Each structure stands twice: as structure tokens, then as C-alpha cells.
């Protein structure tokens, strides 16, 4: 429907792969925040006449995902004193191939879904599916808590992309609420990361599976 929109979604899908391939946490956080900003710009491109509420939510999304959440994560990373994912459960090349396979499958299969005709020729649905899948791979395949948080945020980006399909029907209040929840969630995770680091001297979440008295 809109070539600019498709280009942005394509960029977001490229960032998905970048996040799967990067072993350094600052790069991962940066990728995630750039993706958030790109998604934040999208509602402004989709609407023909700009409503002030849409602009407000878009600006809030850009500020939240592009500035607040990354800075919270960076602070957590600094206090935990780690900057890379050393031994992921799913290696970088396999997760990259999985993500690419998922993106290709999403592109190939999206037209089988019963979509509205105005959504049929956009990349919104395949982009959303691929982003959600990327989030899942990061959540499952990484062992450090901060990478898992980034996976969760990318997953949320995918859900947000799905939400753009319903931009006319969904109250903006819901979108704003989700954003607020997300920011608070990341804030709390920042504290939890610090606690995990203090208790276990590492952010490896595998250590959390053993129960102790």
C-alpha cells in the first residue's frame, strides 16, 4: 500500500537478523532500540491526515523504546559488568539461519491468511510474524538475562506491528498503556538483573533453575 512503509518494515526485519547475529550486548540493545524507533515512526506514515493523538503516541513510543528503555538496560548492563553473550544455547549461526528461515516462511505463507484487501500487499503481517519469531529465538536461545529482555522487547515490537493492522479500531489508550507497562517492566527487570548479579555473581539464567534451601 505504501512503499515507504514496506521499506521500514524491511529494515525492521533486517534488524531482526542483526540482533540474532550480534554477540555483544550493547549492539543488541542498540539494534532493539533502533527497531523500536522505526516502528514508532510507522503510525505517522500510515495515517493520511495526522491526528494529534497518533503523533503523541508515536512520539511516546519513540522516546520510550528509543531512549528510556535502552538507557535502563545499559545501566543494568553496567552495574552487572558484562557486555557479551558468551555461550548461547542456540549458536549465532543456527539462530541466524532459523530467523532467516522464519522470515522467508512468513513472507511465503502470509498471503494464505485471510487478510483485509488493504493489508494484503503490505509486509505488515510477515514482518510481525518474523519479529515475533526473532523474539522467541532470543528468549529461548540466550542465557544472559539482558539478552532475554531484549528478546522480550523484540517480541513486543512484533506484537506492536500486528497492532498497526488495527490502528483504526484500537483505542490509542491501549497502545499508551502497553508502552507504560513495558517501561515499568524493563525498569523492574533492571532491578532484578542487579539482584541476580549480586546473588549469583553472573547473569546466567540457567543458574536460576536449581532450587536451594
Amino acid at each position: 500500500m505504501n512503499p515507504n512503509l514496506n521499506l521500514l518494515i524491511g529494515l525492521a526485519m533486517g534488524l531482526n537478523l542483526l540482533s540474532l547475529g550480534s554477540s555483544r550486548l550493547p549492539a543488541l540493545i542498540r539494534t532493539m532500540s533502533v527497531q523500536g524507533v522505526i516502528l514508532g515512526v510507522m503510525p505517522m506514515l500510515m495515517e493520511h491526515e495526522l491526528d494529534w493523538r497518533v503523533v503523541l503516541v508515536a512520539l511516546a513510543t519513540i522516546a520510550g523504546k528509543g531512549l528510556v528503555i535502552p538507557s535502563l538496560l545499559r545501566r543494568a548492563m553496567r552495574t552487572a559488568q558484562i557486555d557479551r553473550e558468551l555461550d548461547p544455547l542456540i549458536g549465532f549461526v543456527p539462530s541466524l539461519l532459523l530467523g532467516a528461515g522464519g522470515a522467508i516462511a512468513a513472507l511465503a505463507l502470509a498471503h494464505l491468511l485471510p487478510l483485509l484487501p488493504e493489508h494484503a500487499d503490505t509486509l505488515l503481517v510477515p514482518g510481525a510474524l518474523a519479529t515475533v519469531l526473532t523474539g522467541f529465538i532470543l528468549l529461548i536461545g540466550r542465557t544472559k538475562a539482558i539478552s532475554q529482555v531484549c528478546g522480550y522487547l523484540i517480541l513486543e515490537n512484533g506484537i506492536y506491528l500486528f497492532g498497526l493492522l488495527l490502528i483504526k479500531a484500537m483505542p490509542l489508550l491501549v497502545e499508551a498503556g502497553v508502552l507504560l507497562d513495558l517501561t515499568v517492566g524493563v525498569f523492574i527487570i533492571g532491578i532484578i538483573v542487579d539482584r541476580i548479579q549480586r546473588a549469583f555473581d553472573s547473569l546466567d539464567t540457567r543458574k536460576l533453575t536449581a532450587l536451594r534451601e
Partner: protein
Amino acid sequence: MIPILEFLLRLACWLVVAPLLPGIINRVKSMVAGRRGPPVLQLYYDLARLWRKDVVMSNLASPMFVILPAVAWVALAGATLLVPLGPAGASLSFRGDVLLFIYLLALARFCTAWAAMETGSAFEGMGSAREVSYAVLAEAAMIAAVLSLCVQTGSMLLVTMLVPTVGASAVLLAAGLFIVLLAENCRVPFDDPNTHLELTMIHEVMVLDHSGPPLAVILHGASVKLLLFAVVLTQAVVPVGNFGSLVACVLLVACVLMVTVGIGLVESLLARFAFRRVPLLLTVAFLLCLFALLVAWKGGEA
């Protein structure tokens, strides 16, 4: 008589120009590092010097030790005949010549690897193993790039295939092919052509036991391969064929020069990657070409 003359002239042109590229790369590197550096024509002097020397052969090696570098060189020279040069077209062109192009490059690599193992040194075997295992990944990317060009233009001829598209597909293809170029020619993120450290070499390991004319032939073949990839990369992205012959010629030379300077800059600004990170980069190249293919396929459908 004239076609044969043109044919030979073109081949000579490829072979004479090729050793210029490593010289330019070295000049860029030395300029970035603030050194004076070797002259641009250094490789020509090296080749002339090597050509006058004798061959030292291990008594384990069979005559193939000398023959195989020559076969590799002939395969690369043959590959140059298939590559079109803008509006002038290719010297040789037939349906499916792109497959021959890929196989000639593979044949050249096979011959170099075999010749390296002729001396029976474990070190050279290790170099060959590295070269071939990188090539497996680089070739996948190359084939994906060729496929995407095939799908875009619906043809199997190199001449008609190298008609560039615009937009996302071209960007993806350019990035992917540039990484393949760096990998195939053993440039910096994959291999450092300057070092002679056991741990870091790939291509250099294989040519370590060669001397005299065979070494000259291998070095010249490597430079021809570099030129080959630079020209293919240029034509896959820049619409050289749409201009008049003079403009096209200038454009082609400028773009190849740009690619060469780009390689030089990459080499001066980037460090060699650790071995375990190389497959990741090659996978990225493969995915870039694969997504170019996907864009071509989707674009053709819509």
C-alpha cells in the same frame, strides 16, 4: 581475422590490468597508515622476478605440482572470457554460461588446493582445508546471488543477467557480493595477505612451498580473480550496459577503482576476524544474497 584479434586483445587487456589491483589496494593501505608504501606496479616487478627464477621442487611432489597452478590460471583466464564488459558484451556467450563461470572458479580453487598438498606438508594441508571450508560457505552466497540475478531477468546468460535492478535488491546484492569478494580473494576480515603467521594464513599457506614461475602464475591468477569479482560486482549493481561505449568504459573503470579502494579501506580499518566468527559473516553474506533473491522473486510476482 578481426574477431580473433578482438578476442585476444580483450584477454590481454584482462591479464595485463589485473596485477594493478593489489598495487592500488596496497597504496590505499599505506596512505591510510601514513606510509609511502610499495609502488603501484610492485606486483609486475614481483612477477617478472619470479618468472626468471628456477623452480624448487620437493622430491615427494609429482609433476602435478607445476602443472596444477597452470591449470588454475587457465581456468581463471577462461572465466574472464565469459564476463561481459558493459555494452561490448562478452567474448564467449552461450546459454548457461554462468554455471561454467562458477565451475571454472571452483576448478581453479581445487587445483590450487591440490597443488598445495603435493608437497606432503601437513601445514599446507591445513591451509587447503581452511580455504575449501570457507569456500563452501562463500559459494552458497555466490550461487544465491546468481540465482537472484537469474530470477530478476529470467535468463541464464551472463550478458543479459548482469542487468542491474534498483532499490533494496541491488543494495542487498551489492553488500552480499562484496563480502563474497573479500572471502574469495582472502582479503582482510577473512585472511590477512600480509601475515605469515601459522594461525592466521589461509591462501598464503597454500602457496608457501611454491617458487619461481608456478608462484608467479598463482599470484597473477589471484589478481585476475580479484579483478573478475570486482567487475562482476560492479555490473550486478551499476547499469553499465545502458550507456554509450565511452561513458560505459569510464564508468566501469571508475567503479572497479572504487571497489578496489573500498577493499583497501576495509583492510586498513578492520582487523582480521577470529576463525569462529568467519562462518557468521559468510552466513550473513549468504542471507543478504538470499533476501535479494526473495525481493526479486516477490517483485516479479507483484
